[in-house]
């Protein structure tokens, strides 16, 4: 038999914990992960905004770059300036193809001068590994340690203080995008980074897969005492959407450039050439044809991925100018929101648009900046 059958989704080290906690498991890009637990997406979203959400993000990919020429390799692969990092510092960046399209968005951590960690999107692990190896010519080792690494996001205004009660001393002094490799939490050795994907303060915790279940349960228990708890993929998506954090595969792709996506701040032309730098410089010089914008719905209607976006002429829907890349409800902002690539002249604040919600054209308005910004 050669008939192709869909492979069973892979399980993270926390699969049994999710089941025990009442997680509703779905196949998310080949991974069996909870979309939500018993309380539902909205409750988990609110718990993260108000207290703490605990997320299993073990499906994410971890590659270790080791060797004297690791910096050189990464400088060629990514758009941001890795040479600016000191030990225990990280940055957000994208890796581009020669045409300036985005291969992936990722975080690069400097562990030591000759040792960097990259965290990449789960769906791109194989693609990225092949791309990185192909384009670094073996000047350093690149090891895919995704299977040996569990990752738990602890996000929300009470995350840091709660971790300190679990033994992570002085975590509040860890700067944004800082990493510490010596943090013991509830008796487990972890690495802790002040990063996240929710628009809240918080951390992402790396640990051994064998430690993950007991660590996750301790983290959930401590969160519950503060009004928080485990949160699934559904809340992760509404949280990141409100914070207008792009999602690879929706808002970013091989065919969109970081400049178009509003990620020009991670493109450092002055650091020297990198893959895609010529194409991006040319795109910048010529002016961007389209931009990723955020919009709020002005009337009843929820924009979903793939819905057409129309221009407005005299307050009436005109031609299709783009499509929704991400969209949905914004529970904290109390509005339905979304993102779309539109022609640059339509990308400014308050520009009127329409979204075709299954045949019903609903007015929308461009909003620059995040829909939700946490109070500091």
């Amino acid at each position, binding site marked *: 038999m050669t008939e192709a059958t869909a492979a069973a989704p892979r399980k993270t080290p926390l699969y049994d914990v999710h089941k025990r906690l009442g997680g509703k498991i779905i196949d998310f890009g080949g991974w069996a992960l909870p*979309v*939500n637990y018993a309380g539902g*997406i*909205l409750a988990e979203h609110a718990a993260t905004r108000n207290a703490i959400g605990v997320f299993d993000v073990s499906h994410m990919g971890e590659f270790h770059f080791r060797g004297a020429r690791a910096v050189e390799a990464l400088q060629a692969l990514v758009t941001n300036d890795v040479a600016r990092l000191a030990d225990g510092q990280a940055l957000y960046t994208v890796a581009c193809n020669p045409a300036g399209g985005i291969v992936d968005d990722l975080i690069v951590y400097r562990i030591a001068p000759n040792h960097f960690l990259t965290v990449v999107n789960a769906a791109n692990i194989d693609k990225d590994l092949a791309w990185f190896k192909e384009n670094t010519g073996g000047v350093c080792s690149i090891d895919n340690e995704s299977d040996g690494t569990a990752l738990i996001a602890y996000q929300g205004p009470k995350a840091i203080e709660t971790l300190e009660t679990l033994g992570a001393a002085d975590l509040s002094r860890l700067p944004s995008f800082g990493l510490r490799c010596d943090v013991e939490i509830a008796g487990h050795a972890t690495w802790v980074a002040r990063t996240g994907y929710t628009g809240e303060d918080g951390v992402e915790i790396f640990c051994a897969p064998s430690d993950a279940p007991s660590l996750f349960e301790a983290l959930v228990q401590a969160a519950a005492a503060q009004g928080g708890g485990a949160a699934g993929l*559904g809340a992760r998506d509404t949280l990141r959407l409100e914070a207008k954090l792009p999602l690879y595969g929706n808002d970013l792709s091989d065919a969109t450039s970081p400049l178009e996506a509003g990620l020009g701040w991670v493109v450092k032309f002055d650091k020297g050439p990198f893959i895609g730098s010529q194409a991006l410089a040319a795109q910048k010089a010529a002016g961007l044809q389209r931009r990723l914008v955020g919009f709020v719905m002005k009337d009843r209607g*929820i924009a979903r991925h793939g819905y057409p976006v129309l221009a407005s002429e005299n307050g009436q829907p005109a031609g299709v100018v783009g499509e929704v890349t991400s969209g949905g409800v914004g529970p904290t902002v109390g509005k339905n929101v979304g993102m779309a690539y539109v022609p640059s002249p339509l990308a400014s604040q308050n520009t009127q648009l329409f979204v075709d919600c*299954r045949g019903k054209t609903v007015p929308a308005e461009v909003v620059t900046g995040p829909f939700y910004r946490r109070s500091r």
Partner: protein
Amino acid sequence: MSDNYPSDLLYTEDHEWARIEGNMATVGITQFAVEQLGDVTQVDLPREGESVKQGEVFGSVESVKAVSDLFAPLTGKVVKVNTPLGDSPEYVNEDPYDQGWLIQIELTVPAETAKLMQPAAYASFIRESAD
């Protein structure tokens, strides 16, 4: 997973329920549908006076996760719409068989009720589709 399928209702394979009283039917979605959808955030329903036809789309329900069509369990004229759902779509989650009802239909083809499932049949239909 809840096993909450009241005995006085008839059911469709699309997880709508109908409560028949004379030539009127009150229509909603089942506990199973609600659990699949998750948090309901918007319900789009026909207006009073519009006609609906068995098996055809009469509206949609949006949850945080996705949008789903609603299929009419029976043919008839919409005589009443649960307008409070406009402001409080969460009633569908909280109380799908009572406060979360969707529309009331005056039946024009009452014999169609024979095509709907009895509670026991619906319960086993759910069990089978879960396998």
